[in-house]
C-alpha cells in the first residue's frame, strides 16, 4: 500500500473573476498504480473542458474547480475518498471516477449522501439501472454494449461459433460486467450452455495471468477469438504469453484497457489486436468537438498528447458545462441533476445526437472499433473482421 498516497490538488483559474465563489467538483481517480494512465487522462480531459468554460467566464460568472484525490484503483481507498469529498457541502458532484470495482465501492456512499456520480470511466451495468438511479449519470456506452458489439461482429460477420470465443477477465466487478454482456449476446446467437464458453480470470492489480492461460491451453479446442476485460499490463502479458504458446486468436479488448498504454506495452505482434472505444479517434478533426478538444488541450497544457481517455474526460466535462449553462439559479446538488436531465436530445459536435432525460442517464451508446498496428492505434471497421480471422478459416477448410 505504500503507493497509495493522498494527492490534493486545488486548481484555480486566473481568467475567471477571483471574487466569485467557485463551483467545486470532486474526483477520486487512479493517479498511481496500474490504471494511472487512465486516471491522469480523465483528470486532464475534465480539466481541459473546465478550462475552456473558465476562459469564457465560467458558469454564471463563477469558475469551475476540481478537487482530485488518488485512489490507486483500490476500492477501499475510493470509499474513503468519496466519503471525504461528499462530506463537503459545497462540493456539487463526484466526476470521472476510474474503474468498476472502485465505482462499486463508491455507490453506497453516493446513495447515502445524495450526490451526483457523474460520468465515471466505466461501463459497468451496476451504474446503469432501469429506470436509472437519480444520482448516477453516465456519458459513455456500457461494457455490455462493447462486448455485445464484439460478439455480434465475431459471430455475424466473422462467422465464428459461440464456442470459439473465450473470455479473459479481471476477477472483480469489472470482469463480470464485460463477461455478462458478452454471454448475453452469445445467448442471443444461440449459445445454450454457458460452460461451453471458456472464461478465465486474473486477480486485480497483479500480473498473475499464467494460470488463466494454462486453463485455455488445456481445453480441447483453442479459441479463435479472446475477449479481454482487463487492465493494460496484465492484458499485454497475457497476449504476449498466448502468442508464445501458439495461440493466434484475435484479441479484443474493451475501452478500459487504454489502447495507447496497451500499444506501448506490446512491442511487437501487431495485426490482430482490437480495442473498442467509446469516443471517436482523437485525430477525427472533421468532428467539430474533436477539433475544439485539440485546440483546448494545447491551450490548457501544450505538453499533453491527445488520447482517447482524455477526450472522454473532455466530452464528459463539456456535457457537464452544457447542462450547467441551462441553470438560471445558482447550481446545487439537486438542480444540477435536473438541468442535465432537461437536456433531452442534444448535440456536442460528434456528428450524432446524445440524449439525457429522467428515463435515460447514459448519453452515448456509440462504439468505435480500433486496431493496434505497428503504427499505433488505427481506426477499424467491423466489416473487415473477416480479414483478421481469415487465416484460421483456411486451416479448418
Amino acid at each position: 500500500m505504500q503507493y497509495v498516497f493522498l494527492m490534493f490538488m486545488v486548481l484555480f483559474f486566473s481568467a475567471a473573476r477571483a471574487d466569485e465563489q467557485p463551483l467545486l467538483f470532486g474526483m477520486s481517480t487512479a493517479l498511481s498504480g496500474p490504471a494511472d494512465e487512465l486516471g491522469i487522462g480523465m483528470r486532464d480531459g475534465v480539466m481541459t473542458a473546465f478550462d475552456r468554460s473558465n476562459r469564457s467566464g465560467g458558469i454564471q460568472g463563477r469558475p469551475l474547480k476540481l478537487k482530485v484525490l488518488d485512489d490507486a484503483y483500490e476500492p477501499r481507498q475510493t470509499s474513503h475518498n468519496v466519503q471525504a469529498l461528499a462530506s463537503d457541502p459545497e462540493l456539487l458532484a463526484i466526476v470521472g471516477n476510474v474503474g468498476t470495482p472502485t465505482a462499486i465501492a463508491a455507490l453506497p456512499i453516493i446513495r447515502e449522501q445524495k450526490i451526483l456520480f457523474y460520468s465515471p470511466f466505466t461501463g459497468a451495468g451496476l451504474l446503469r439501472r432501469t429506470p436509472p438511479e437519480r444520482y448516477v449519470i453516465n456519458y459513455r456506452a456500457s461494457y455490455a454494449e462493447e462486448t455485445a458489439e464484439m460478439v455480434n461482429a465475431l459471430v455475424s460477420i466473422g462467422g465464428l461459433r459461440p464456442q470459439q470465443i473465450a473470455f479473459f477477465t479481471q476477477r472483480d466487478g469489472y470482469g463480470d460486467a464485460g463477461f455478462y454482456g458478452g454471454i448475453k449476446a452469445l445467448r442471443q446467437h444461440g449459445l445454450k450452455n454457458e460452460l461451453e464458453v471458456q472464461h478465465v480470470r486474473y486477480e486485480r492489480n497483479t500480473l498473475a495471468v499464467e494460470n488463466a492461460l494454462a486453463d485455455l491451453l488445456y481445453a480441447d479446442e483453442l479459441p479463435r477469438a479472446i475477449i479481454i476485460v482487463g487492465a493494460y499490463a496484465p492484458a499485454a502479458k497475457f497476449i504476449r504469453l498466448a502468442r508464445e504458446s501458439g495461440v493466434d486468436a484475435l484479441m479484443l479488448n474493451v475501452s478500459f484497457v487504454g489502447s495507447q498504454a496497451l500499444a506501448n506495452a506490446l512491442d511487437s505482434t501487431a495485426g490482430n489486436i482490437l480495442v473498442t472505444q467509446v469516443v471517436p479517434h482523437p485525430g477525427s478533426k472533421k468532428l467539430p468537438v474533436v477539433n475544439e478538444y485539440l485546440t483546448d488541450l494545447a491551450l490548457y497544457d501544450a505538453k499533453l498528447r491527445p488520447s482517447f481517455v482524455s477526450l472522454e474526460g473532455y466530452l464528459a466535462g463539456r456535457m457537464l458545462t452544457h447542462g450547467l449553462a441551462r441553470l438560471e439559479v445558482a447550481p446545487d446538488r439537486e438542480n444540477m441533476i435536473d438541468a442535465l436531465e432537461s437536456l433531452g436530445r442534444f448535440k456536442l459536435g460528434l456528428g450524432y445526437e446524445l440524449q439525457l432525460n429522467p428515463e435515460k442517464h447514459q448519453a452515448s451508446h456509440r462504439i468505435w472499433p480500433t486496431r493496434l498496428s505497428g503504427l499505433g492505434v488505427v481506426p477499424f471497421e467491423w466489416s473487415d473482421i473477416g480479414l483478421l480471422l481469415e487465416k484460421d478459416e483456411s486451416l479448418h477448410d
Partner: protein
Amino acid sequence: MTEGYSRRQLTLLLWALVLLGLMTSGAIATYVGWSLAELSDENASSQSLQQRMSLDIEHLRRLTIESHALTMELLLAGDLSNPATENTPLLELKTAVSSAGQYSPLINALSGRVVAITDIWERTQQWYLRYTPVAIDIRQEYSVGNVRKVLQRLQASLDSLEGRHNLYIAQLMRRWKAADGDVFITLAQQVREEETKLWPRALQAAKTEATELTRLIERLSIQKNLSDLADIKNNLLKPSIDRLSRQLAVLNSHLPVTAQSRALEISPVVAALFGTEYRPDPVHQTIVVGNSGLFPQQRTYLELEQVRQKLLREAEQQEADNHLVLQSMTLLATTQLTSGRQETEQRLAQALLRMALSVGALAVLFLFLGIFISRHIRSQFSQLAELQRENELILNSAGEGVIGLTAAGNMRFINPSASTMLGIAVDSMIGQPLHRIWKTEVDGSVEADPVIAFGARVIDKHSRLLRADGRSFAVEYSSMPMIRKGVQEGAVITFRDISESEQVKASLQESEQKFRDLSEKSLVGVYIIQNGLFTYVNPHFSEIFGYSRDEIELHLGPQDLSHPDDFKLVARNIEKRISGVTDSIDYSIRGIRKDGSEINIELLGSSTQYGGEAAIIGTLVDVTDRTKAEAKVQHQAYHDPLTGLPNRLLCNDRLEHALNNAQRLNLQLAVLFLDLDRFKHVNDSLGHSVGDALLVSIAGRLNNTIRQADTVARQGGDEFIVILEAIGDSSVASAIAKKIQDAFAQPIILSGHELYVTASIGISLYPEDGTSADTLIKNADAAMYQAKHKGRSTFAFYTSDLTLTSTEWLDLESALRRALVRDEMYLEYQPQIDLNSGKLVGVEALLRWRHPERGLISPIKFIPLAEETGLILEIGDWVLDQACLQISCWQQQGYHSPLVAVNLSSIQVFRGDIVASVEQALVRHSIDPGYLELEITENCIMENTEKSSQVLQALRDRGISLAIDDFGTGYSSLAYLKQLPINKLKIDQSFIADIPHDLSDEAIAKAIIMLGQLLNLEIIAEGVETVEQQQFVHKNGCNLAQGFLFSRPVAPEVIATMLSAQSDAEPQGSLGS
C-alpha cells in the same frame, strides 16, 4: 325638487355628526374601565403561577434525567444484560407536561422536549428489538458457523475425491513399475491419459477456490466497516462463488459416474452465505441477496451498529438541550415575579395614553365631517348650472332645427339652426304662437300646417316651408308631444332642409338614360339579369343570339342561351357574384342561338343594382371564329407534321394525364421508348425522302399494333414513345413490346427497296421506376440504351443501377464540375511501411469525393468521368496542391514528413503540362521535391511510350521520385523498363491477395521482386492484408509494403498521431522482425 332633497340630506348628516360624538365618548369610557379591571386581575394570577412553576420545574428536571439514563442504559447494553425496557419516568413526564397547560409562554418548548425524548426512547426500543437477535447471532457465530460447516463439508468431499484419484494413480504406477512388455506400455498410456484429464485440474481449482472463499468469509465475519461490504460482495465474494460453481459444474459434468457425489454443490454454501433468496443479476452484474445468511446478517449488524452510534450522539445532544430548556424556564420564573408589577404600571400608563389619542382622533373626525358637508353643498349648486349649460349647447349645435312648444302652442325655445332655416331672429319669436312662423306651401298656396294640432306625433313628413323672406324650401319634419303624468305639457318639433337630396334623385335618372343610349349603340352584347331572367339586353345581344329583344327580355334566362354543359359554370359564376365572393368574372362558354347552332362567347359580368334591386350586368362577345382558328394552331403545335402522331409536347401532356389517372385509380402504366436500329444508314444511303417515308409507314404500323386507349408519339428523329395505360403487370408491357417487334418483321417496300427495320425498346413502369413523366421517359430511354447494348432488336426493362451508367451520367458530370468549388473533395492517406524497421516511411494520397446527397462516390465511378470530360486536369492539379500543402503542414507541426505518393492519370501525362503543375505546387508550398512521389500506371506508359518517357525524364530531372503503379498487369518489356527513369515498382494487389494459396501468384510476385532487384529499383507490395503476405514479400526481398494489415487510408490527423507515436517510440526496437 333637488333643493329639497339636498336639504334633507344635510339635516341627516348633521344628526349623524351629533350621534357619532355621543357614541364615541361612551365607548372610550367603557374601554378605560374594562382595561383597568383586567390589568389588576392578570397581575394577581401571574404572581401565583410563577411560584408554582419554580416548584414544578424541579420535578420535571428530575424526570428528564431519569428517562435519559434509561435510554442510555438500553443503548449501551453491549452485554445484552436484560436492561429495563419500560420507561416510567417518561410517562410521568408526559402527564406532568400535559397538566401544565397554563404555562402558556413555555409550554411549546417544554412539549417539544417531551416529543423528542419520547421519540428517541421509542427509536431506541425499536433498535434494541432488532439488534438483540442479530447481535446474539454474531457473538455466538451462528451464521458464520453455518457457512463454515457447509464449506468444510464441500472441502471434505473435494479432498476425498482427490484422495480416491491419487490412490487410483498410485495403484496404476505401482502396477506399471512391476509390469513389462505390452502390459507396461498399456499401463503407461493409461497413466498418461489420467494425467491429462480435465477434471482433476478443475478439482484442484475448486479446492483452491474453496480455500479462498473460506478466507473471504472469515474476513467478512470480522468486518467492521459498512462501506466496505459492497466491495467485498461484488468484487470478492461474487467472482469467487462464480468460479467455484463453474469448477464444480465442470467436475460434475466430467467426473466418472461412480465418483460423483451429491456433496459437490455450491447451493448450500450460497444459501448459508446469502440466504435462500439468492440469485445472480447479470443485467446489472451484481447479485440479489436475501434476508437470512451470513452476509445479510453481517450487513444488518453493521447497519445497526451505525444506528446505535447515531442514537447515542442524539441522546447526548438531547440531554444537553433538556438541560438548557429547564434552566431557561427557572430563569424566566424568577425574573417574571419582579417584572410583573412594573408591567402592570406600564400598562396603566399605556391605557391613558391610548385614551388621549382617541379623543384627538375624534376631534379630527369632526373637523373632516364639517368640511365634507360644506363641500357637498357647493358641488350640488355647480352641478345644476353645468347641466343647464350642456342642454343649451346640445340644442344650439344641432344641425336640425328644433322648436319647443308650450301646452298652449307657444314657442318656448328655438335653436340657432331653426332660426337660420326660417330666416327669423330667435328673440322675437319666444312666447309667440307657432303658426306665426310655420307656413307650408302646398301647390303654391300657403296654409297653416296641421302640425299645430300637436296632440298627434308626426314622423318624417315631407313638405315645403316658407321662409320669412317668402322663399320656400323642401323640408322633412317630425313632431313629438311631451307628456308628463298623462298631461300634455307641450311638444318638440324637429325639421331639416332636404333640398339637396331631391337634386341627387334627378341626376340618377339622367345617368340611366345615358347608359341606355350607350348600350343601344354598343358593338358588344350588353345584358342585365335579375332573378334568373334577362331584364334588359341591347340590340347587339339579341343579334348574336338571333332573337328579337322582346323575345328575350323578361322571357328568357341564361339557361336558355347557354350550352347545357356550360350552364353549370354560368350558374356558379352568377351565384358567386350575387353572394359577393367576386366582384366581376371574365370567362368563356358555348352559347346556343335561336336556330340551335353553337357559338363561342366570352363574357364579363359584375354585380350591380338595377331599379333598386340586385342585378348582374355584363357584356358579351361572339368569339366563334377566333376559337376555331386557335384550335387549328393548337393541333399543329401538338402533332408531328410528318407522321401526324402526337409530338413530344402532347406526349408529355398525355403521360401527365395518364399518371394522374393511374394515381387516382391505383393503376400501373408503362412507357416504351423505341429507337430504330441503324436508321441513319437508311438516310445516308437512300436519302431523306425515303427516310421520311419510312418513318411515316412505321408510325402507321405502330398505330395498328397498340390498343385503342394507348398513345404513340414521335419523340424526334427515329425515336418513338408508346404509353400503355392501365396494365395489369409488366408482362403486358413486354407482350406489347414483343408485338411491336413482330410487326416490324415484315419488310417495308419503299421506292423499290425492301427495307428490314428493327427497333430497340426500353420499358419503364409506373410506379416502380418513377412517378413523374420526365423520370419515366428518362428511365425508359436508359433502358433502351441497355437494350441496344444487349444486341439490337431487343427490349429491356429499366433497373435502378442503369441510372449512373446513362441517365444520371450528365447529372454526375455537372456535380463533378462543382465538386471542387464546393469543397466536396478531400484526400486520405494510406501508410507505407518499411518492413525492416517497422516504420511509416511513406503515404499514398487517395482522392475521395463526398457528394452532399449521394454520399461517398467511388473513384472507380467518377475518375473515368473526370478523364472523359477532361476535368481530371483541374482535379489532378488540386490533388498535387493539397498533397504539397499537407507535407508542409506536417513539417510545421514538427513531424518528419513521410514521402507522399500521388497518382497521375494518363490524361495528365499526355494532355496537360504536368511538369509545370508539379513545379507550381512545390514552389507554392516551398516543398523539397524529395518529399513527393508520382505514380503512373504501367498501361499509361505503354499508351505512348515516347511521350511518357519524355515527361518522366523531365520530372526525374527535377528530383521527383517516380513509381510504376499496378505493375504486372501490363505488357512492359524488360528492355523498355530499363530505359525509364523510375525509382520504384508497385506490385499490384491482385498478385498479393491470394498469397499463400495461389502458387502462380506467388511466382509472379517473386519474379517482379527479382526484376526490381535486377534493375536496382525499390519494390513496394500493395494490398498486404495478412501477416503471411507480409512475411512472404519480406522474405523474398521486398522491403516496403502498404495495406490493410498496417492501416486503411486515414485522415491526415491520424497520420500525425502515427508520426507522433513513432517519434515517441524512437529509441525502442524494431517491429517487423
